């Protein structure tokens, strides 16, 4: 008797397998998969496995083997697990065990935490999620999309610092002042209120200038020491129309109160990105602004 499956085109078998796996949307063992195929495509298990291996080799489907059983999936198990874990972490801090349970469609995933740790490595390395080491009474590490807030890790140190204040009979402010340079932090100058106007009314064009100069220091305290400030960030922080903002920035540059840094390859930016920069009449796009020499205290 001739093989009833011999007339089935090999390619169409594979297409049917791929389609079934996509429909199932979970990692599936070969014998389970066989039952899900249309009757005329329910080829012997060994033959099905050969096709599955061939599809894996071609990169069309993926293999998942948490234990003895081999499962097959239309999706990349590692990427899928990572995606689900990131979604689960939205607004929550979860332990490896809790994360393992959140991963669906991959049999055996929740039995061990080893996959969670392995799959999270690139996510942690690229800053898409963060490890929260145990703090206070917590005994286990957790993972979250937000970086760990330092507060809970500083409780002990805060007590020690308070004790130093008490011991030296000094206000905490003094201890704090001494601590900052020891930690390598500089003191940002407090933002000065605008200078009182003498006599006459403020001329209208001075207001946007003042807003921009004060805005620079507000978003970048080191601007007073002539650090570069992003015009994109500055625009977002100052309540001025685009026309008014651009005009004021260019006026400030013309009078030497600020220096502008241009973008070398604006064509590499999208139209939206270019819109956020400042463009002069000659078509130069500016990306950064810095206080001019002698105007540091503006």
């Amino acid at each position: 008797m001739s093989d009833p499956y011999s007339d089935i085109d090999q390619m169409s078998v594979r297409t049917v397998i791929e389609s079934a796996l996509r429909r199932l949307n979970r990692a599936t063992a070969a014998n389970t998969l066989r039952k899900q195929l249309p009757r005329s495509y329910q080829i012997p298990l060994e033959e099905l496995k050969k096709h599955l291996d061939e599809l894996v080799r071609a990169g069309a489907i993926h293999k998942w083997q948490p234990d003895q059983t081999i499962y097959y999936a239309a999706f990349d198990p590692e990427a899928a697990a990572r995606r689900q874990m990131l979604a689960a972490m939205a607004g929550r801090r979860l332990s490896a065990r809790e994360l393992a349970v959140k991963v669906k469609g991959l049999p055996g995933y929740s039995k061990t935490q080893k996959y969670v740790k392995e799959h999270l490595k690139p996510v942690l390395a690229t800053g898409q999620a963060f490890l929260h080491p145990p703090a206070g009474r917590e005994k286990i590490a957790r993972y979250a999309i937000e970086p760990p807030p330092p507060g809970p890790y500083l409780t002990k140190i805060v007590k020690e610092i308070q004790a130093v204040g008490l011991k030296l009979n000094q206000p905490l402010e003094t201890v704090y002042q001494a601590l900052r340079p020891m930690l390598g932090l500089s003191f940002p100058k407090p933002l000065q209120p605008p200078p009182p106007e003498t006599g006459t009314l403020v001329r209208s064009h001075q207001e946007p200038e003042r807003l921009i100069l004060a805005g620079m220091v507000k978003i970048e305290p080191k601007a007073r020491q002539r650090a570069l400030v992003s015009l994109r960030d500055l625009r977002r922080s100052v309540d001025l129309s685009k026309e008014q903002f651009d005009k004021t920035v260019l006026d400030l540059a013309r009078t030497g109160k600020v220096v502008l840094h241009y973008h070398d390859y604006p064509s590499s930016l999208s139209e939206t990105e270019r819109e956020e920069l400042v463009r002069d009449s000659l078509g130069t796009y500016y990306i950064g602004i810095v206080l001019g020499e002698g105007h540091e205290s503006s």
Partner: protein
Amino acid sequence: MNPLSALDNPFRQNIVADAWRPAEVDVPEIHREAFETCDRAYELVKSGRMSRSVFLHGPAGSGKTHLLGRLQKHLTQTRDDLLPCIFVSVRLQTSPRMIWRHVRRRFAEDLLRPVADGATQIQHLIAGRLAGMDTKKRSTSNWLQWVRAQPVRKTEKFEHNLDQLARGAGLDHELFQVLKNVLLDRHRNDARNWLMGDNLTESSRKELGLSEQPPGDLDQETLAQEVILNLCRLAGPGRPVVLCFDQIEALQSHPEDRDGLFRFGQVGATLFNSTDNLLLISCIQSALMDNLKSAIRDADYDRITQEAKVLNPLTYDQAVRLAACRLEAEPILKKLRAEHPDSPTWPLETEEIKTLFQSRPCPARKVIAACDTLFEQARGRQVPKIDDQTFIEKEFQRLREAALKQTPPDETDENLTHALPLLAEMIEPTLLPSAASSGVDLLVGRSSRTVGLVLANHRNMTSLAARLRRLEEKPPDLGLSRLVLIRDSRLPIKRTAKVTRERLAGLQAKGLRLVQPSIQVLAALKALRTILSEAKSGDLANAGVSIGPKTVQEWLAANLDESLRVFFEDLVGSTTVASEKDTDLLQDIAEELEEHFILPLADLDRNLGHDSLERIEDAVRRHPDRFGLLAGPPSVLFLYAPPDLSSGD
């Protein structure tokens, strides 16, 4: 005759490529503020025993590298035989995945670099540390003489002192052993190569007094990080290590790439947190400021930008001053200029310089390039203008020729890791994220086919055998359509490495493909990544005007080196290469020719113990990029070297 005709054009140099080769003429007023900030931070590190950081922004061509050169010159001046700091300059032309290894290589190169008095930085460092430990209070100068003495004059006492020093600084055993070799001038090349992070052969390791196999299966990035931190610790308190990062932009494989900048932030923060004698100076183009801020963690950003300074475009007055200083530096020109006291930039028209400032702010490089043209015009010559396409073509050729001479096999891993994603992006932008944890170094995808690339450029056969064993025991389970092992064709697997050969043959039988890129391919890859890195960093300039990476990428895509296209197709293409049946024979031929360079065919056949001259001849003819054959009689084989390699000494 025009009196200027015989003079060198003082504006010819408009790019400072390296902090160790600063511009001959420097105008200290320009970027004085940024320089003083760096100097102040340096003093704080020195006196405060804590690490500091300075971040420098500026447009392309504003003089960031020039400023680093000024700083290098200022800080590495010896005073009373004492080198006050260790200066290291790193251009980040590498893959983000190899950033620590790249820094280690540059760190080692600079440590072994002689400073003004001819002694290397490492000799100064050791002399200073020994003087600090000396109970008899002999000066650093005395110790430096001892350190620099010929090996025969060094005594057991010297080794004893080094032992004490290593213990005091808590040095890693291997690093200490290697430094001892460096200082005693023993096995100089091997010691240097170890410091740079190269994979050494068993015999080289033995010569250095190390175990034949590198310890454990350590992650190379972690290992490199440890060596760097050890070296910073060795410099000790009171002697700052000034570490400058330049061309950070080159870490991005494309404009939206955040990974490179993120990793840079991590590296900077780790260095800052783990040391107490480091001055970290980072330079970046103003245009990248927004990307950098959004790509790296706030905590990392704070650590690497304790001080932030800008290098502004020049003012008109600064441009005139710059032009005048360059002109004055030429003695004959200085004499001629004395006859024109009313013109500050004679023989250049000052008004012409003024026109540069009519359109937009003008960085130093553009001023110098314009003066270059004006000077040529002043002596009656025209400077031919070349378009950007021709400029890129010439530059690519130059870089490729330089790479043919200077691309050792030890750099192959870095070369491939950095260049392959760029090449893939150009040919087919389908490169998937790396999967280093799964035993594969890179993944390259083409529609539904994903190819896993394994880099296996080990010199140490035991290490290579171990890597192959891991592949055998735990093949990468990534649903790959193919696994490709890349090994530099200049690294034959020797006949004595039987286990390695057996494992390789076993893996090949299971479908692994071995690809052995020739020096021509590797040189083209190096040229490709260098020119793109230069463009991203704003350092590829035609007549003072930077050429953007997009233009370079388009030119490269349109004029892609044929050898690169073939190589890429070899990696990801669906065709099967037939030459793999002769892998062992090719390795044998390469091994023999590496040793003898040139051999009669009959002699080679005898040495190999084969009985088929035809097979050898056939294998050689199929690899003209690796071997040459002179028909004879007698037929002679030689190791092929590209023309530019063989034209040297």
